[in-house]
């Protein structure tokens, strides 16, 4: 047995950095996603603070107009693609296999590839700061503004190529979680017994695999226009100036649900635990999520009410947009029903979950206001819209993800986070959030356009803007408290034990942190609340004396996902080099393409479980 374990670990030192670099373990990949997303959260937050300093008073000159454009573009892009999505992916990775009773995802190496593509794509895009050409055209990059004759620097190219690399990784993750959830469930884990978080992960993954190809097409066509002289967005060649807007928002609106549904799943798992009763209306919550996702593909043009689409199109999209509020309302009432009559415990995860519900409600209501076309015509491109989407994406997504961090931190690290610091964090973040974003509604109604870098003193916006800036710094302090709490709790937090919250779902049946193989014996599930409805030991029988760790074949670490991600990213980078220097670009493209191709072949012919391990285990039996 000892030899077998030695062979299993032979290629790598499991405690060293290489164990993380070559890992295919969904839990480690989840942690990598989470840490990377938090780093980008700080970066995106700093970009926001720069904007708030510039706007604190009228006619300030903290940064130039050009820098301000880079700040709002990269703040939006960073928060969406490098923070909320990967933070969601962090929890998909860590939790989904645990919640469905699997030992890993369906494709562990593909999972590693997704992470590396996300990381390298993010680095590629942010590298533009060092060349002085950071993207500066707004996160939705409207063509023809982004065409070569209007955006002459390589800023748009960095944005396209970074997003393209990240998008491939996101697609791979989408496929992985669809297959994992459909096909890797433990015996008895029927679809309608799955935790709601897993359900929402499944729905989000479907959204990803159907929405991301559309943005891939949109940015590929833009890249071709910019680099190879095609005419897709060239008005002088007869192109339709709205083509980009349609393609972008066909992706962009489902993307909104990609960002919010994970948090809805998180809250649906947290509320029952701290209300001490099962989720009210489980089936309707699940179906509402599916309906939201489905309708989400039919509302994209509500981002375009001011472009003059004609009455019929505008009316249809207005009605569809209002319709999507119905399943969302169903969810909110179910959450209230879950708490009704429960013995509620106001622990930190619960506070953030309640913060999510209240703030998301406000954002949802201002969203319905946008569905009313005459009102939207006034609100378009004002701070009212900025207030709206921060209520859903920060008040919604980020509050949900913060709740998830407090809730599952004990499972991930084996230690509890501090309750008192956590409550301080919540109070600061809740107050800071509302101080920052609630006044923006008023600024918007008063006519302050989004994305302006300064304003005149006689507009009457100065006092409100100062309040917003103060609120932004309160949020910054709350994030510092959050970071301190995580670092401190990871070192000296109270040991958590398997199920510190008395929760009902499967991930709480095993040790914290879990073994690398998750379940010593694959559990059999008999209800939606396995840990409430049954004695804990029927879910995960105590390890039997003869359970031999070496007999559990876990996939072996691999270099190829990392090298393939490097190859793909360098191919993307070579296009940027090619624009400056043709020969250098082609050479780099050929070399990195070869690296990618070799990695694919080596990956394909490399067994998932290293041969030595499989043979060693076979010999052992």
């Amino acid at each position: 047995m000892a030899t077998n374990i030695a062979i299993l670990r032979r290629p790598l030192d499991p405690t060293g950095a290489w164990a993380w670099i070559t890992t295919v373990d969904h839990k480690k990949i989840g942690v990598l996603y989470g840490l990377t997303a938090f780093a980008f959260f700080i970066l995106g937050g700093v970009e926001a603070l720069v904007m708030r300093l510039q706007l604190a008073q009228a006619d300030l000159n903290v940064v130039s107009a050009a820098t301000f454009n880079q700040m709002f573009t990269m703040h939006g892009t960073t928060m969406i693609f490098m923070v909320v999505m990967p933070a969601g992916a962090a929890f998909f990775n860590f939790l989904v296999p645990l919640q469905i009773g699997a030992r890993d995802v369906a494709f562990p190496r593909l999972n590693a590839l997704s992470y590396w593509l996300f990381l390298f794509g993010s680095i590629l895009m942010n590298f533009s700061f060092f060349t002085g050409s950071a993207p500066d055209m707004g996160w939705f990059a409207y063509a023809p503004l982004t065409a070569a004759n209007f955006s002459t620097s390589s800023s748009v190219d960095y944005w396209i190529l970074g997003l393209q690399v990240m998008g491939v990784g996101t697609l791979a993750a989408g496929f992985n979680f669809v297959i994992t959830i459909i096909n890797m469930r433990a015996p008895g884990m029927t679809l309608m017994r799955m935790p709601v978080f897993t359900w929402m992960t499944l729905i989000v993954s479907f959204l990803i695999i159907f929405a991301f190809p559309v943005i891939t097409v949109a940015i590929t066509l833009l890249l071709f226009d910019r680099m190879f002289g095609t005419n897709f967005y060239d008005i002088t060649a007869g192109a339709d100036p709205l083509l980009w807007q349609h393609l972008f928002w066909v992706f962009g609106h489902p993307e909104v649900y990609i960002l919010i549904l994970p948090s809805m799943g998180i809250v649906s798992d947290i509320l029952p635990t701290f209300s001490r009763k099962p989720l009210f209306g489980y089936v309707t919550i699940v179906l509402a999520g599916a309906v939201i996702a489905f309708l989400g593909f039919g509302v994209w043009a509500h981002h375009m009410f001011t472009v003059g689409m004609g009455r019929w199109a505008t009316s249809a999209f207005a009605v569809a947009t209002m319709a999507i509020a119905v399943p969302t309302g169903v969810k909110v009432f179910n959450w209230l029903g879950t708490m009704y009559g429960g013995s509620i415990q106001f622990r930190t995860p619960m506070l953030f979950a309640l913060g999510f519900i209240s703030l998301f409600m406000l954002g949802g209501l201002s969203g319905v206001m946008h569905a009313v076309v005459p009102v939207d015509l006034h609100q378009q491109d004002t701070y009212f819209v900025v207030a709206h989407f921060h209520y859903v994406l920060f008040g919604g997504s980020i509050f949900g993800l913060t709740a998830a961090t407090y809730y599952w931190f004990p499972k991930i690290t084996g230690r509890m986070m501090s309750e008192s610091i956590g409550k301080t964090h919540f109070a600061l973040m809740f107050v800071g959030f509302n101080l920052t974003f609630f006044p923006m509604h008023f600024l918007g109604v008063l006519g302050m356009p989004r994305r302006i870098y300064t304003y005149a003193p006689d507009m009457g916006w100065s006092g409100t803007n100062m309040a917003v800036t103060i609120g932004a710094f309160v949020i910054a302090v709350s994030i510092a408290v959050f970071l301190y709490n995580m670092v401190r709790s990871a070192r000296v937090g109270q040991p958590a034990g398997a199920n510190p919250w008395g929760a009902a779902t499967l991930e709480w049946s095993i040790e914290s942190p879990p073994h690398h193989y998750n379940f010593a014996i694959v559990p059999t599930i008999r209800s939606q609340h396995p840990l409430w409805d049954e004695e804990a030991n029927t879910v995960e029988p105590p390890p039997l004396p003869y359970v031999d760790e070496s007999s559990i074949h876990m996939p072996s670490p691999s270099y190829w996902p990392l090298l393939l991600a490097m190859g793909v990213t360098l191919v993307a980078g070579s296009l940027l080099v090619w624009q400056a220097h043709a020969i250098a670009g082609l050479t780099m493209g050929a070399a990195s393409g070869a690296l990618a191709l070799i990695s694919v072949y080596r990956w394909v012919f490399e067994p998932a479980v290293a041969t030595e391990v499989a043979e060693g285990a076979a010999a052992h039996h």
Partner: protein
Amino acid sequence: MQYLARSPEAEHATTTGLNNRKLLMWAFLGSDAMFFGPLIATHLIYRTESLQGPIEEILNIPVTTISTFVLLMSSLAMVLALAGIQQGKMGTFRFWTAMTALLGMVFIGFQMVEFTEFAKHGLTPRTNLFGSTFLTLTGFHGAHVTVGIIWLWSLFFASFRGKVKQENSLDVEIAGLYWHFVDIVWIVIFGVIYLVGAFGVEDRVLEGAHALAGLGG
């Protein structure tokens, strides 16, 4: 000892009983359909919007009908290749796999000739909207076929090293799913881009609709 068999990629341990990689290919094809969808839609929106240069009249229907037939026959060859390996007939598998790949290469050859002819008549991706959308759409389709050809030759040569055999005929089946999908996309392109483009079906449908509206009024 049932727990011993449960490794993440073990084929018999899935919830649905379907293989993970096969499901992955189906999911990918669904996603890939959403990739071709916007490309086809963009072409249809722009098909008569070009301000200069040649448009649909440049399409050569007879020649493309031949290349379409070639690609369709490659799907038949793919089916026979899969049947071969499932029955353990390696010779049959190798013959029809090579045939599939060769027919695919003939198709790509036709496409290269077509693109060259168009360039001679002054149609490149830079010329006008038609050139941009048509060549990008069919170019991406050609890239898909090329990936399929590389994949098929990889299976062909791997079979001599014992890496592809009856037990893992699933590897061939998955490649076949991809190949048939790329074939189906071409059927759509041939119908919607070439035939509609050449015969102006859309205009006739519109005329018919107007006539009906006239009757109703």
